């Protein structure tokens, strides 16, 4: 792997930025890799469109953003429409069918029922953790233990059990999907 460009987009409050930060922290601090995370969002304090980019590489990274993403994770219909053009030809689009209603057919799409899974665990706020678990299992960039270790550092103490359960559920979803990309 030379570099991997990941885009995550959705509404503010869906954990778009936190997800990218956790992924970046895991590869940098657990796998000794390099990563750059940037974000852009509207001026609203809550809600509004939100997008985060993560570039992962085995060596130092110059340009902090990439025009084309290897993986695009879209968590809302408007953000999907806006950022789909940034998906590289042959790249993978990950969507949550609960929040993205019109799923494109001309790209490689992976549907992850993150919201439903999180709701079943008790709180839809953990949907992003389901996705992180899914990405762990699907990419194998790092181990589940490494991911869980980082998640523990970023989530409030009272939500740790919920979030760890959500990560595990995401890993299970990936197994049913068929393992790695």
């Amino acid at each position, binding site marked *: 792997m030379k570099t991997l460009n990941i885009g995550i987009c959705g509404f503010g409050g869906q954990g778009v930025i936190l997800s990218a*930060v956790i992924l*970046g*922290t895991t590869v*940098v*601090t657990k796998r*000794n*890799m*390099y*990563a*750059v*995370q*940037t*974000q852009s969002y509207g001026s609203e304090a809550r809600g509004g469109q939100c997008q985060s980019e993560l570039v992962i590489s085995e060596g130092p*990274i*110059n*340009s*902090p953003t990439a*025009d084309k993403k290897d993986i695009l994770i879209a968590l809302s219909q408007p953000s999907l429409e806006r950022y789909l053009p940034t998906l590289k030809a042959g790249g993978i689009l990950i969507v949550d069918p609960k929040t993205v209603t019109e799923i494109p057919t001309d790209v490689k799409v992976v549907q992850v029922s993150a919201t439903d899974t999180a709701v079943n665990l008790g709180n839809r706020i953990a949907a992003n953790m389901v996705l992180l678990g899914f990405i762990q299992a699907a990419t194998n960039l790092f181990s589940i233990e490494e991911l869980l270790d*980082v998640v523990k*550092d*970023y989530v409030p103490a009272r939500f740790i059990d919920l979030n760890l359960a959500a990560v595990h559920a995401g890993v299970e979803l990936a197994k049913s999907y068929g393992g790695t990309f």
Partner: protein
Amino acid sequence: MTADGQRQNSRVLSGVHFMLGNYATVEGALAAGCDFFAGYPITPANEISERMAERLPQVGGKFIQGEDELCSIYAIAAASLAGAKAMTATASAGYNYYQEGIEYAVAVEAPCVIVNVQRCRGENFATQADIMQMRWGAAGDHEMIVLAPSSVQELFDYTVRAFNLAEQFRNPVIVASETTIALMRERLEIPGADRIPVLNRKYTDLGPDKYKTFDAPENGVPDFSPLGKGYHGLYTINPHDIDGSIEWDPIVYEKLYKRITGKISENEHIISHTESFQLDDADIALVTYGSEVRPTLDAMELARNSGLKVGVLKLGTVWPVPETRIREVAKQMKAVITVEMSIGKYAGEVERVVAGRCVTARATKNRGIGHTAEEILEVIKGVRA
């Protein structure tokens, strides 16, 4: 623990982190010994204040949110005279206000560090448009030391260096941060505390009867005296003699300002910091600084891939201008291209130093986002043709 290092409270967070640029700035300051911070809220510099408010009290330092920028800049100048290693942080519009206090800090030779997270006018988008205001903004004759980091790692490293230069030269030192790197998270390696060089100002060995506040050799730096210990130092912005007394005498005035400016301009070789990439066989040099270093290095690679002999001169210090190195490079090149995120301000300095030794060109852009490597490549090809 590595989640932006949030759960440690030691002064130096040695280890590998994935850290926000603004946080790395704070950790660099703490590693350099910073024990005083005053700031006023402004985006995109707020994470610096917020983390300082959390971190400084943990290590015995003082944090103040001033009632405005003026309060902040004067509080750090005075805390510095009281012996503190003091810092403030703001973004472009806030920096305007700082000019007033910077003039004072220059005049009384109060070491301090000022972080300016450059942003577009009224909006939090990327720019390098303050490069001249950081050099020339304050009234009166002065020299400035301005460092231009290009990554989260350099926000840490250069902030340490900024404190060291401030202490060494008794002058404000500016860290020219940018929205791009300040709000970016990136790999940051903080070495062990024993491997971080920390310089402290020199205190006088003389007693109050022999000591004179501003007595220093030509182009030199006066020794410091503590406050409240009978040294009766007079720290006035007005023209002053070596004992600090207010003295209007053209000869005294000229001598004072020659030393205050000379201690920096005549030590350019000590202060200047540049890095060279593939310049040895190059005939085109890209000269750049700050976040623009990043796409410029990618552009160099693209150009090399298409057979063009391109190298990069990265300016870690933008002021004083690394004239010696720029001249050396210009002599070996057919062309020097300045890459920057503004209407083209520093390019004028580079062209002044190149002074006809080779062709010059500019890649300038100011639309809230840095150059792409491809855009820079286009300029290289244009110069080639």
